[in-house]
Structure formats: structure tokens, C-alpha cells
């Protein structure tokens, strides 16, 4: 049977093929990535894009949560300060309500309470990075002002009721702020500012002990209300920390999965490269042997 006289050419083509495989393996070794073009593994390439998307989102959320944690902590700390001030005010008022103080002493109590009220208003006007945190969406204007034109004085809220949320990568909404009037209503039974203003007026104008006791109770109710509202912020902080930790942990897992998907298996590639080299050497030897000599050498 006749054979293809150009079999050496075919062997050279095999040699080319081996060299091309070596080139690809070397590229994988040098880049460390098993998938250097989409066609190497189309499914993995698609999956990789989605994994990176999720990793990036987790990463971004962790950074954002770092930013808002500061704001929440400042808000919490401000509310802690308000609670301290109000507790002190209640203590002062309770002491003043025993009916033994003269007008001058009561006026002094009134002044002390006015100082506490101003401190509370200042805390309600707390800002973080130049933005008022209790003004709803109106973060550039001071949310609370006190008008002394009336007796008792009146508090005015200049903000709005907008609540901001931060969304976690899995769609949970974490509340980032409490609009001012949710903590410090300017009027009503839960209004610390109104109760304080009433007490200040009570002691300044010599109101009855009954009235001032009733207003002190109102301040106590308002304090409880503020403590309850503070829980909302504390919850947000807890949820934010948990969500941030979850995102970090998810990112770690996803990065491991993505690395596993994309990273070149070095021992396997080294083995394949070694096999390719052996094959190449063998082919070269065969070509060298077969390429020499023909029947013409024997003709004389």
C-alpha cells in the first residue's frame, strides 16, 4: 500500500500543535489565570462576571457601611447626651417641686432648666460632616429653633419627615436617620422641648407645685419616648454591623470561588507542560530519523 510521502510534513504540523499547546500553557502559568479568553471556558467566563459583580457590591457596601456607621454613632451619642440632660432636668425639677423654694430659688431653677433646654436643642441640632443629622432631608438648615417671644417658649422644627436608608447587597433597608420630630416633637405629650419650656415658665412665673409636678411627669414621659426612639438607631447600628460582617464574609467566600474558577491549576499545568516537552522531543527525534535517507542512497 502506498503511503503519504509527505508524512514528515504532517509530523511537523504535529510539532507546531505541540508548540502551540506549550505556548498556551506558558501563558496560563505566567498570568496565573486558567481562562485567558472567553472561548477557553464560556460558562466560567459568564459566571466569573457575575461573581465579580457580587464581590464588588459586597466590597462597596462594606465601605459605605463604614461611612454611615460614623453618622449613626454620632446620632446615638447625641441622643445619649439628651437622655443625660433630661435626667438631670427631671432630677432638678423633682427637687424643686417640694414646695419649699422661694421665688428667687425657683427662678434659679428655671435658669438651670433653660440651660439644659438649650443644651438639648444644641444636641438636636447635631451635625455630622457639616450636615444636620436630625433634619430629615433638610440637612443644611438647623432643624430646631426656640422662640422666647411667648411664655412658655416654643420650639420650631425646620426639617422634614424624610427617612434615609442604606440598602444591603441582598436588598435589606437599614434606616440611617430619625427625622427630628420623631425624637423631639415640638408639642404633644412626648415633647421633651415643650415639657422643658413649660417647666422653665412654671418656675419663672411661680406656677403651682401641682402644675410643675405635672410638667415634670410630662418630661419624664418625653424622656422615655426618646429612649424608645434611640432603640431604632441602636438597631440600625447593630443591623449595619451585622450586614457589613455578612458582606465581608460573603466576599471572602465569593473571592475563594472566583479564584477557584479562574486561577490556573499550577501543578496540573506543570505536568501538562512537561508532557508536552517530552512529546516535542520525541517528535523531533522521529523527524530527524525519518527525514534521512531514501532508496536513492542505495542506487549506484
Amino acid at each position: 500500500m502506498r503511503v503519504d510521502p509527505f508524512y514528515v510534513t504532517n509530523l511537523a504540523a504535529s510539532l507546531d500543535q505541540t508548540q502551540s499547546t506549550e505556548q498556551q500553557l506558558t501563558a496560563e502559568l505566567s498570568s496565573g489565570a486558567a481562562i485567558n479568553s472567553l472561548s477557553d471556558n464560556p460558562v466560567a467566563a459568564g459566571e466569573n462576571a457575575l461573581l465579580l459583580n457580587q464581590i464588588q457590591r459586597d466590597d462597596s457596601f462594606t465601605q459605605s457601611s463604614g461611612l454611615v456607621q460614623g453618622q449613626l454613632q454620632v446620632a446615638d451619642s447625641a441622643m445619649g447626651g439628651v437622655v443625660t440632660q433630661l435626667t438631670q432636668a427631671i432630677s432638678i425639677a423633682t427637687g424643686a417641686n417640694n414646695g419649699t423654694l422661694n421665688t428667687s430659688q425657683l427662678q434659679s431653677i428655671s435658669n438651670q432648666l433653660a440651660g439644659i433646654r438649650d443644651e438639648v436643642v444644641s444636641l438636636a441640632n447635631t451635625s455630622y460632616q457639616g450636615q444636620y443629622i436630625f433634619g430629615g432631608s433638610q440637612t443644611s438648615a438647623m432643624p430646631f429653633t426656640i422662640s422666647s417671644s411667648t411664655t412658655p417658649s416654643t420650639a420650631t422644627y425646620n426639617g422634614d419627615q424624610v427617612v434615609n436608608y442604606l440598602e444591603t447587597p441582598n436588598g435589606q433597608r437599614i434606616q440611617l436617620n430619625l427625622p427630628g420630630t420623631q425624637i423631639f416633637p415640638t408639642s404633644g405629650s412626648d415633647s421633651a422641648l415643650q415639657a422643658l419650656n413649660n417647666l422653665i415658665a412654671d418656675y419663672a412665673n411661680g406656677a403651682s407645685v401641682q402644675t410643675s409636678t405635672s410638667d415634670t411627669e410630662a418630661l419624664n414621659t418625653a424622656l422615655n419616648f426618646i429612649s424608645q426612639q434611640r432603640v431604632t438607631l441602636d438597631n440600625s447600628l447593630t443591623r449595619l454591623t451585622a450586614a457589613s460582617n455578612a458582606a465581608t464574609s460573603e466576599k471572602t467566600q465569593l473571592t475563594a470561588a472566583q479564584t477557584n474558577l479562574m486561577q490556573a491549576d499550577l501543578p496540573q499545568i506543570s505536568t501538562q507542560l512537561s508532557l508536552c516537552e517530552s512529546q516535542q522531543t520525541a517528535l523531533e527525534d522521529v523527524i530527524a530519523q525519518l527525514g534521512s535517507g531514501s532508496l536513492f542512497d542505495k542506487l549506484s
Partner: protein
Amino acid sequence: MATISSAFDLIASALDADQSALSIVANNVANANTAGYTREVPNWQENAPIEIDGVSYGTGVTQTGPTSVRDAVLEERLTQQQQLASASSARLTALNALQAVFPPDSGSSSSTAGDIGSDLTGFFDSFSSLEANPTDNALRQQVLSTASTLAGDISNAAANLNSQRSALDQEASSVTGQVNSLINSIAQLNQQIQSTSANSDAGTLEDQRNQDISQLSQLVGINQITTDVNGLSLTTTSGQLLVSGESSQQLTSGVVNGATHFYLGEVDITSQLEIGGGQLGGDLTARDQDIPNALASLDQLAYSVATTVNAQNNAGTDLDGNEGTGTNANGVAGTGSTPLYIFTEPAQITGSALAMSVVMTDPNQIAAASFGNQNGDASNAVLMANLASQMTVQGQTPSNYYAQFVSQLGSTVSEVQNENTAQNASVTQLQTQISSTSSVNLNDEAASLQQFERSYQAASEVFTVLNTVMASALNLGVQTAVS
């Protein structure tokens, strides 16, 4: 009774035949490396016997000329397979260039550069960051910066695809000249073959014709029909006549809507050539299908992202308190007079990718707040960040759409790669079969050379003996008179 002189004639013809056989061997050896050469074998024919006094005597041998050893069926199969392999090879080259525009992002910062998938995530994430502090100028700048990166990368990819398409178009149009030259050559060879070897193998001429057909089949898809008088008709795979005997029809090209179209006479055969095979078929498939498909996906992505993001931003209030002109989810219309667009608003899907750009220059115009709210509100930023997980691009999220796009592109390349490998293997196999039949094997030629040389030597010896016998006869036994 046969005479000595008839024996002289007989052996002289044997010497002639051997000489011509040796010449055929020499020609084979000389053309051992000539592309398309088909080895020839001498054709020995026993001369007609003569009958003298009722006894039949042989009259020697004649070498009637070389015969090319070819298998027409194998050659035609090779032609068919070659046009498929050339088509997939040309398409694969184009697809490899296409997929290089979308390299897989390994996750390292260097590989992220230019990756549209990462750009998309980075862009929508910048709105998530803005939720943390909607008045922060740095976070607002980040939104515009990631928007620019996204728009720039999509636009660059589209420009790259367009230039690849132009390059393919140019490559395809340059094939026309080669095709026409081969068609002319085949028609001329048809004429020569019909006039010289109407009923038999035309040897070298047929080699040339086969070589031309082989080259032509690598350029365009063709069908061949053998006619009587050893002629050949060629059509495109879809049946348009290219060569009929000694007449041929020229392929012409012209530009229609910015793309080269191909004509036979007045008929536009571009779409037929596209599915026909050959390099032209592969180039046209990449030019008219693969690249436009990829561009259409990018256009769709760019259009959906730009319009949905623009619409959402236009349905909010910016840092300066200006409302957009859009209507929000609650049906409330903005009071603004100028739309708050981040991207250039595309008018139609086609061309959106190339034209994608950021039109917003002032980061204050990012409408993080909802209508009616002040600049501390981030509810509209939340809605914009949420666009990342909404089915805004043909029923999929932008990232999923992109992931599916790269996956599909990779699958197409991989599919064509496998197809090409299989077709090349088949071509190699057929070439091996043809080579084993038709190529010059030097060992065979050495053996033939030896054989014909021996045969020539034997005939010479016979001639010498006959000469001696003749001398003896002429001298009637006296050896010195004639020697």
C-alpha cells in the same frame, strides 16, 4: 518465420519505451515538491502480434505516454472540505479578534481595566455609596467618574468592533480580484484541456486546473460539474454559474450602506456567498452576523442603562434643589425645565453603544433626593442603585445581561474553534489520502528507475546479441569480414 531484422525492430522499440519510461521517472523526481503535481506512470502497451505462416509472433512494446495517477472523487471531496475549513478558519480569526475586546476579568486590578462588567457594577455601586451621604461631593464625583468609565469602555468596545468590521469588509473585497483571476485561469485551462485531451486525463493541464479549483474553493464556496469532452462547470454553492467550459462570469463588488456587496452580473449574491463557505464566506459571516450581533448586544446594554438611569435621575431633585422634568413612580411630575440626564439620552437602540457618553458635568446635578425633598434625602439614589438589580435590559439585570453576552460570545468562538479543528482534521486526512495516491514517493521512483534501467540494459544486451547473430549471418561464418 520471424526475421532477425524484425527482432531488431522489436528490441529498438523496447529501448525507446524504456527511455521514455525513464524520462517519466525523471519528470516525477523533478516535480516531487511541486504543489499540485500528480505523479505519472508509464503506460506500457504490447504491440499487436503478426502472424507468419499461421504462427503468431509478438512485436514488442510501446510506451503510449504517461498517465497521471489521480482520484477525482477524493479531489472533489477535498475541495468541498477545504471550503468549509477555510470559512471556519476565517470566521475563527475574526471571532478571536472579537473576543479579545472582552477579556475575562480575573479580578486583579490590572485586568479590571476596560472590563464592562466591572464598570457596570462600579457605576451602580457608586449610587449605593451615595446613599451613605448624598451631599458628599467626593461621592457625587465618583458617580460621574464611574459613569465616564462605563460609557468610555462601552463606546471604545463599539468603536473597536466597527473597525474590525471595516477590516473584514476590506479583506472580503480584496478577495474578488483573486477569485476572478482563478475563474479566468480555469476557463482557459478548460479550453486547452478540451482541445488537447477531450477524452483522457490531461496530465499537467489537469493538475493546474485542480490546483486552481483548490485555491478557488479556499476563497469561495463552489460546486463542480464535470461535462463531456473533459470540461468542467463551476457554480457557487448556491448555484450561480461561475465557469462553463471556456466561458466565465466575473465577480464584481460594490458598496451598499457602507458594506461591500458582491454581484454576478446584476445579481447580488452576497448572502449566498456568506453561507457558501471559503474565506469569503467566513469573512462575510463574521462581518454580517457575529460582529453585528455583538454590537447589537452592546447597543441594547448601552441604551437600557442610559435611558433607565437618565429617567431615574430626571425623576429626582439635585443637590441645588432643582427637580428634573420626569415623572416619578408615584406619578408626580418634576417642576424642572431642564432634564437632569447623566448620559447622552439615546434616541434609538442602534448606535447607542458607540455614542454612549456622559453629558453631565456638574456632580451637583445628580438627583439623589426625591421630588419635594431636600438635598439630605437619598431615596432617589437608592432607586438608582436598585437599577442594578432590576430587569431593565431585555428582561435581565445589566450585569446578568453582560455575563450572558460574554458567555454566548465565548460559546460561539469555542463552537467555531471545534468546528474548525474537526474540518482541518478532515482536510488533513483527505490530503493524506490524496498524497498517498498521487504524490511522488522517491523510494517508488528509485525502484522504478532501477527497474527501467535494468530493462534498458537487458534490451541493450539483446541488441548486442542480435548484432552478433546478424554479423555471423552476413559473413557466412567468416568472422573477420563483418564484425
